[in-house]
């Protein structure tokens, strides 16, 4: 230990502060070697004693009786003028009342919301198996597919799970919402009939399918015998591709926004 380190510890040593045994033994060893540090510790100890003497001497001092009387008078006056108890005691009751009102409001909202939805029994009856409602015009080379609702085609058969009525209701609510979105979207578009890509076996679509929206070069329409506006031949056109469960495309239809017509 050097003198600088000892100096930083001198006050704690003099005040009898707790420290590690190693540090204490090092400090003692250094003190035995260094007379100036020994003197420094001696001074610190004397200072501690002096300060302690001051503390002891002043220990009996306290404020005068007049201060206490003045404060007591203020306390009596204060407790009469500003009664703190009633205002503070009502606070929990107010909080409880507000919480109760909020609970009632939420309960009413929940009841109204629940009653405005379909009953759970009706939802449970709804078939989960996907259907591909298509009309297949046979007798010609091409097969025209008219899906009544394009999105319904994409649903895959899923194992029925034991869902709670509320979960089923929430799920159905989301599905209805999605259906509406697509319906609105579809109403803004004009589409051709589905045209088969190669040989189309209707049996393949009994297990369901999926329609994927893609963009293809406008010249693709020509390969299906559709007229192509040559002024816009380099643009792309939207198309819905009907994929089977095996992922193989079976049919295609071209879609155009009504606005762009």
């Amino acid at each position: 230990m050097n003198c600088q380190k000892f100096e930083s510890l001198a006050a704690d040593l003099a005040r009898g502060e707790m420290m590690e045994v190693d540090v204490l033994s090092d400090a003692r060893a250094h003190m035995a070697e260094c007379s100036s540090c020994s003197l420094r510790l001696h001074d610190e100890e004397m200072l501690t004693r002096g300060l302690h003497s001051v503390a002891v001497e002043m220990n009996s001092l306290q404020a005068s009786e007049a201060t206490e009387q003045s404060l007591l008078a203020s306390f009596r006056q204060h407790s009469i003028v500003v009664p703190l108890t009633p205002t503070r005691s009502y606070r929990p009751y107010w909080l409880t009342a507000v919480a109760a009102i909020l609970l009632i409001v939420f309960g009413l909202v929940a009841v109204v919301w629940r009653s405005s939805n379909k009953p759970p029994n009706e939802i449970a009856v709804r078939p989960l198996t996907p259907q591909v409602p298509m009309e297949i015009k046979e007798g010609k080379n091409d097969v025209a597919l008219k899906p009544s609702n394009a999105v319904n085609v994409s649903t895959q058969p899923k194992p029925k799970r034991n869902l709670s009525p509320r979960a089923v209701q929430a799920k159905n609510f989301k599905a209805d919402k999605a259906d509406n979105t697509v319906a609105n979207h579809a109403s803004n578009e004009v589409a051709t009939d589905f045209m088969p890509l190669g040989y189309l076996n209707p049996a393949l679509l009994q297990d369901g399918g999926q329609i994927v929206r893609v963009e293809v070069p406008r010249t693709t329409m020509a390969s299906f015998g559709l007229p192509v506006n040559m002024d816009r031949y380099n643009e792309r056109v939207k198309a819905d591709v009907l994929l089977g469960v095996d992922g193989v495309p079976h049919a295609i239809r071209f879609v155009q926004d009504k606005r762009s017509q």
Partner: protein
Amino acid sequence: MKPKTDLTDAELLRLMMSGDEESFTLLYKRRHPSIYRFALQMSGSQQVAEDVTHDVFLFLMKDGHVFDPNRGSVSSFLFGVARNYVLRRFRGDQLTVPFADGEDDEPFDQVGNEPDPLEDLTKAEMIDNVRRAVLSLPERYREVVVLCELQELSYGETAEILGCAIGTVRSRLHRARGLLLAKLRPNKEEEVLSSAVVESARCFA
């Protein structure tokens, strides 16, 4: 139901805030001496100490609800309030702390004929000198000395009152003690030097 004298400070404060005069009296009697001494040791003036004690407890009866038991004890809270009142008094009233630095040398000059003034610190005269030396310290060092040394609070309690880290309290106390030693022993180095010369002379003798 336990007697009120056995209640903690926080319980007494709660009762006091609900208008219980006995609780106020008990709390006042329990805590006012240390607050008074703190103000006296900080200011060196009995009048200031009386005023600060009065103001602290007046504050407590009006705004005692601001005390948060999670942040410390009632005692620390009162010390903190007292400290603010003392500092406000120093700044607002332009209170001059008696015994400026220049005057400190005088009492030590008078006892300079003794071999080592620090040896007699326990004497009444030296107690007075220590008190003067404490009063001459800058505020930030003085409050640490008063709280740690004279009020004998722990570093943690002092840090709580001052609103600073324990390390800050330690370093300020270290610095304050160094200043006190310098004030109490202005000619120490010369004395050490002279004693060293004597010792060496003896060795060679």
